[in-house]
């Protein structure tokens, strides 16, 4: 079942992975929504952008980087805030029109670093917004 219901859920993550369970909860809820046929878009903001870090290797916890990659494979669109990513050292140049994202060798391919204005577009499209963690 892939996105057959047409309704959309937007999830915004404020907290980084492995400091709390917010990223885990967000990924599990996103997976459940996709499995039930809803469209899912995710925006990483503040410390939430650390969920895009390439090479995460938690020994005992749910791997958030892998979970985001799996969500993208299931149809989720995942973007992270350009300013938050830049402040945390993820961005390595100007917006790349061809890649349709700000360039980063440190971020997983599943996540596109984008302007915060793209979050406004998500809000415009969505049926419901859920936030995870606090800014």
């Amino acid at each position, binding site marked *: 079942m892939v996105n057959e219901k047409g309704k959309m859920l937007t999830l915004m993550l404020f907290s980084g992975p492995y400091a709390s*369970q*917010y990223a885990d909860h967000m990924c599990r809820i996103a997976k459940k929504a996709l499995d039930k046929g809803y469209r899912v878009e995710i925006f990483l903001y503040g410390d939430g952008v650390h969920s895009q870090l390439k090479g995460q290797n938690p020994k005992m916890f749910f791997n958030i980087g892998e979970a985001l990659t799996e969500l993208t494979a299931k149809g989720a669109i995942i973007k992270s805030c350009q300013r938050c990513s830049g402040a945390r050292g993820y961005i390595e140049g100007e917006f790349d029109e061809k890649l349709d994202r700000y360039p980063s060798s440190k971020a997983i391919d599943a996540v596109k670093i984008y302007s915060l204005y793209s979050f406004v577009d998500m809000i415009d499209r969505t049926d419901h917004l859920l936030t995870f963690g606090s800014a």
Partner: protein
Amino acid sequence: MSRLCLLIMKPPHTDDDMDRMCGLLNSAKERGWDVVIYLLGDGVYCAKKGQRGHLGNSMMTALGKGAEINANLKDLLARAIPPENVMPGVKVLEDLEGAFIEDVMEKASRVVSW
């Protein structure tokens, strides 16, 4: 009828968010809304029986106002809270995320998460 879904992922005594939750619930009930609360992760601590103080009893307050409360079984068990130690009236669900998504996407007018 309008329906408010509240997703709580934090324990009751960390800050004053349970006060905010009760305020929101009161406003919703005064307007005749249905209110459904989902307790996930550390949020299941809110459902533990025998707590003292108004924050610890926020779920009892919510039940008294007619809210429906659901707690996630695997999160309860992970925190050594067996279902018999959950406040009476709280439903324990094996697939809380699934029930929550169905509710939010098909029934809810508004959803708020903590």
